[in-house]
């Protein structure tokens, strides 16, 4: 799912990524250019590459099959369901019903999709469920970057805005049954009946979801029943986007445009606030990776920077200037991996030292979010999927 796990931390416990050097295990050429800012998903031996169409790639051999599915956000995988196989859960463009305003105000639906082979012959043969059912729809705050769903604690959590009937638009978080998409609870905040508060991607840690809004308030929500644990205003003004939130064992990290804020996970009180001395990269949707010890943020300044802070105190530990990052940083096995315009670069999380750089000839950039699995690292340009591993010797 987006962020690599329910917390959205881009911190992978797998330690199969290349550390000291890199070589190519296999490559897979796409039939057509994939969209930029792709975030592949690794489940068992299958690497799902959302795109046009979505590909299911054998992580061992690189063999690929096409799924006639187009997601508008990074899908999540649900496995604890009424089905024998996994369900891909993602936003899809909803039919406009012939409305001339449909193209101006695109509507989405969250769909649970069966990725099994052989279901594309019949139209719509993969969709297990949709939320909300027509005539309802999901109405993202920013249609170009809709908040992706999260699967955690046996539920699908969706932050954003949605409507179940044409008259009422709601803003908040909806918790759905991953088997059939039925609503288990909603956490809704409206400034008025006609003015929903758009929420972002929830970060789930334990039995609590932490989620920020376009009004810069962070809410902690009990995932079992949708009740509020606490809420805190991080900034006073209303922004143009929803800040990424990542929960760790003790700290909830919020990455605003010009500063990073740490809140105490237990009660939402402010622990620290660190100016970034730069601005977030607009080329990256969720430009932060967080471990219990270190928070790494991607800045889009000139030159671009990676900034590492201590998660407990917010103290800046190191800054480096990589090639222009096109992906969030991903942390695995003590290494920070970053997709760039040229390929992938690896840094030591301890001090920011560059460990290696992978730069294939004539790549069609940008490069995707790197995905680390037991057998290595996977990253995609717009035309090629690369499987990388530790270099021999």
């Amino acid at each position: 799912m987006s962020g690599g796990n329910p917390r959205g931390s881009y911190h992978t416990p797998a330690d199969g990524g290349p550390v000291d050097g890199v070589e190519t295990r296999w490559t897979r050429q796409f039939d057509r250019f994939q969209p930029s800012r792709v975030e592949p998903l690794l489940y068992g031996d299958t690497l799902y590459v959302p795109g046009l169409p979505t590909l299911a790639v054998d992580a061992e051999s690189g063999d690929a099959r096409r799924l006639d599915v187009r997601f508008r956000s990074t899908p999540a995988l649900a496995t604890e369901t009424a089905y024998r196989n996994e369900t891909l859960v993602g936003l899809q463009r909803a039919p406009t019903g012939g409305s001339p305003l449909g193209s101006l105000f695109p509507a989405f639906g969250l769909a649970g999709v069966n990725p099994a082979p052989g279901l594309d012959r019949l139209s719509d043969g993969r969709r297990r469920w949709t939320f909300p059912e027509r005539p309802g729809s999901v109405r993202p705050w920013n249609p170009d970057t809709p908040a992706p769903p999260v699967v955690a604690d046996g539920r699908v959590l969706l932050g954003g805005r949605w409507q179940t009937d044409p008259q009422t638009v709601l803003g908040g978080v909806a918790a759905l049954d991953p088997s059939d998409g039925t609503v288990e609870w909603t956490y809704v905040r409206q400034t008025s009946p006609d003015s929903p508060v758009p929420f972002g991607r929830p970060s789930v840690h334990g039995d609590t979801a932490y989620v920020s809004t376009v009004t810069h308030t962070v809410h902690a929500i009990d995932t079992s029943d949708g009740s509020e644990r606490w809420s805190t205003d991080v900034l006073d003004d209303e922004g143009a986007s929803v800040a990424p939130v990542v929960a760790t064992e003790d700290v909830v990290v919020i990455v605003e445009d010009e500063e990073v804020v740490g809140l105490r996970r237990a009660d939402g009180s402010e622990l620290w606030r660190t100016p970034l001395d730069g601005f977030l990269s607009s080329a990256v949707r969720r430009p932060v990776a967080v471990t219990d010890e270190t928070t790494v943020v991607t800045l889009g300044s000139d030159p671009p920077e990676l900034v590492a802070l201590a998660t407990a105190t917010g103290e800046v530990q190191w800054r480096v200037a990589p090639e222009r990052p096109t992906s969030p940083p991903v942390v695995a096995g003590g290494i920070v991996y970053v997709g760039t315009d040229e390929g992938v670069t690896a840094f030591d999380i301890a001090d920011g030292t560059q460990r290696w750089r992978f730069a294939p000839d004539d790549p069609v950039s940008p490069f995707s979010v790197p995905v680390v699995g037991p057998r290595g690292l996977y990253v995609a340009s717009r035309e090629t999927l690369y499987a990388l591993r530790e270099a021999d010797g």
Partner: protein
Amino acid sequence: MSGGRDARQSEDNGSESDHDAASDSREHGQPHESTDDGPTVRELLAATGTLLRGRPALAVPFLLVGLLAAAGDLWRLADSVSTVPQTTAQRGFLHVVLQPTPAPISAVGTRVPAVVGLRTEPLLGVLAADGLPVLAAAVATVVVVARSPGTPTGDRSLGYLLGVAVPALVVYQLVTLAAFQVIARGWPPGLLAYLAIVVLLYVFVRLWLVPATIVTAGPRAAVGRSLTLTKGHGWAVFGLVLLVGVGANLLVSVPVLLPSSLGVPLPVGTALATAVLGSVHAVLLGVVVGRVRQA
């Protein structure tokens, strides 16, 4: 139970059963005004209404099917497999519910892709909730058709009706619904789809009496018998199909047509539509077979 207490001879055995059927119709006060062109839609509906008023017991089988279907809907709404509401809110008012046989008319639908890959337990739940009412409707259809005066059922035994007619009816319904599903899911592609819909509608009308002729003539002769009986009466049958189909869409949508403050659950629409239109549809089949043969 024997098939048709008044018909002592099978339909194919000559005119005696015709005579009996006609006598029976008069005996039960049905209008008997068929013309050389055959009965009109209005006449057939009037005869059906008269018959149901005179023999309200004919409505009991589909009342039970309606309750069973509503229970199935309640189960489906509570289980872990997605459902799709099937009311005017989704389909509009002019939607026609095509029913190849008198069958449950459910406000809670199941999409085929939602069933693919299910674990055993939820799969059995869906099959039971959706399948048992269909089976019950097949039994109810056979009972109503066999007990409708004017329907030449001959001396069909209970074993025949339950062991042959009911399974044949279920198979016929599944085959017809499969054909609908194939076209609904985009085959054949492009303009050929419209041609396929026209052909399917024509075949649908000509085979509309199959649920009755399975009872009267047996499964092997049912299709041929329906083709014979509907010859020259296609528009009348088409009218009945439209009336039953539009009525099904409206009745099943009663819960969403009423004010939402009343909170009428969808299964109420299922029970209502199935009980009323299942009975009307089944009795109509018997009436049409009887009337067309007389015409």
